[in-house]
């Protein structure tokens, strides 16, 4: 028991350091019956950095996020999340790992029988001992942060697609996780609404220091997230500005094709790639 506690302490100390590996995939494989979804996936997400996973529909991008959250279990390989080997954990043990993981699902996956307030505060209301008044304050704070305060008592069915995604982001960030996973957060949105969602992703990464994995096939949004950063202006207001090269390098692209990583590198390297599949994808 004492050894276990010491190990945990060492892991936490390592994770507290800048650039610590918060998500590690090592030779992960997964198949559903005859269909191989992931053949051999290895990558590392560093603390405070962003991984942008690109790929065509059905290439296995969303599956990677589901493995990280323990919604699916890899057939082979090792998966580390915040110092825990999630490929070996039971559903009950995964609950502790999920306490530090937020996930934004395709279409938002808001609970349609709950209001925006109840959705955003769900984890705090249901799964924490936080006093109710404090939960209300946190929900209002988070909704204020994404500019959705006036929708607090609405039902999800009364929101537009973009508003639902933003509420989903608010729900995922309400309990202050250190890792956020975005599964096609901007798919199906018009460019202007998609940009507001992109800006939330950038703000969370740069102002709240959240490590993030963004799964998308929307190139415009992927490059926007990778090449911009959030800063506080002189009056304390948040501004989204182009990121300097060293900051832009913190956002790494991964291109997945048929369950295999065919490219890994920053935005400039992706643009310069001569791989026929990547150039076709980027056109």
């Amino acid at each position: 028991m004492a050894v276990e506690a010491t190990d945990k302490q060492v892991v936490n100390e390592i994770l507290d350091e800048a650039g610590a590996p918060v998500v590690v995939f090592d030779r992960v494989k997964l198949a559903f019956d005859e269909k191989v979804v992931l053949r051999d996936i290895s990558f590392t997400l560093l603390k405070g950095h962003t991984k942008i996973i690109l790929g065509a529909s059905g290439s296995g991008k969303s599956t990677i996020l589901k493995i990280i959250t323990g919604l699916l279990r890899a057939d082979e390989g090792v998966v580390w999340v915040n110092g825990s080997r999630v490929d070996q954990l039971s559903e009950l043990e995964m609950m502790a790992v999920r306490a530090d993981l937020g996930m934004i699902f395709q279409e938002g996956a808001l609970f349609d029988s709950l209001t925006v307030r109840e959705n955003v505060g769900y984890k705090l209301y249901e799964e924490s001992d936080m006093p109710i008044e404090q939960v209300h304050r946190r929900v209002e704070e988070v909704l204020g942060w994404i500019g959705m305060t006036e929708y607090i008592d609405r039902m999800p069915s009364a929101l537009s697609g973009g508003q639902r995604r933003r509420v989903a982001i608010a729900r995922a960030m309400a309990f202050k996780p250190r890792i956020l996973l975005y599964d096609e957060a901007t798919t199906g949105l018009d460019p202007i609404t998609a940009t507001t969602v992109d800006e939330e992703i950038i703000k969370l990464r740069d102002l709240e220091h959240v490590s993030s994995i963004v799964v998308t096939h929307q190139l415009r949004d992927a490059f926007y997230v990778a090449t911009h950063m959030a800063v506080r202006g002189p009056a304390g207001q948040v501004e989204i500005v182009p990121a300097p090269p060293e900051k832009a390098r913190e956002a790494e692209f991964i291109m997945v094709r048929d369950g295999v990583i065919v490219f890994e590198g920053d935005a400039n390297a992706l643009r310069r790639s001569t791989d026929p599949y990547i150039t076709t994808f980027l056109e």
Partner: protein
Amino acid sequence: MLPFIENRLKQAALEVQEYVRLVTASIHAIFTRPRYTYDIVQQFDTIGVGSLTVVILTGFFTGAALCSQSGLTLDQFGARPIVGRLVSASMIKELGPVLTALMLTGRIGSGIAAELGSMVVTDQINALRALGTDPIRKLVVPRVLAGVLMAPVLTVISDFVGIVGGWIVARFQLQVASGVYWSSVTYALYPEDLWMGLIKPFVLGFAIVTIACHVGLRTSGGTQGVGTSTTISVVAGSVAVIAVDFFVTQVLIALLY
């Protein structure tokens, strides 16, 4: 042909395995924490109070029709005055539990499968898990508890209303005096019959809700899949009610009589 049969058998075995797994996990979750009290109370209201009207109407008309039919048969033996005995025994031992369970299958079995199925296809179940909530505890346990505990209550109400329906027919159509009818009703009631009528709905309620939850949580294929799950839930639930009723009856006869 052989691979087709093999696939079907494998599929059936998988369904049984998943159903047993769900039932085991639900039973474990009932007796351990955390519990979602608000959801439990809400399901008692939805399943119990919400099903009252349909159960009362079914019970009333079944009791009334049963009395009419039994009156005709008993007339052949000049035994019309004991019609209450037949109505009460039939309602309490068999028709009350089975018809209430069938009504519950139609009303709540379909509702549960559709609700959980929609949650599956819109990723709400995955969202629940990602937020640290066990869907079995949050969604299945409240429904199982409400189904198991409300089915007997609804059955007792259905039995009573059915006997009242029988009384109205006996009094005004068959011209049997009220006193004769009611004394006949109570005369036929043995403790074994009451136990039979009370134990059955616990088992039937459990079967209906667990089948509906299992089918709902195994939904795939978008909105079409939700429709399919709803149909399967009602069909499988109804067949299960009839089959489980037969086996429980055999067990209870062996144990009680």
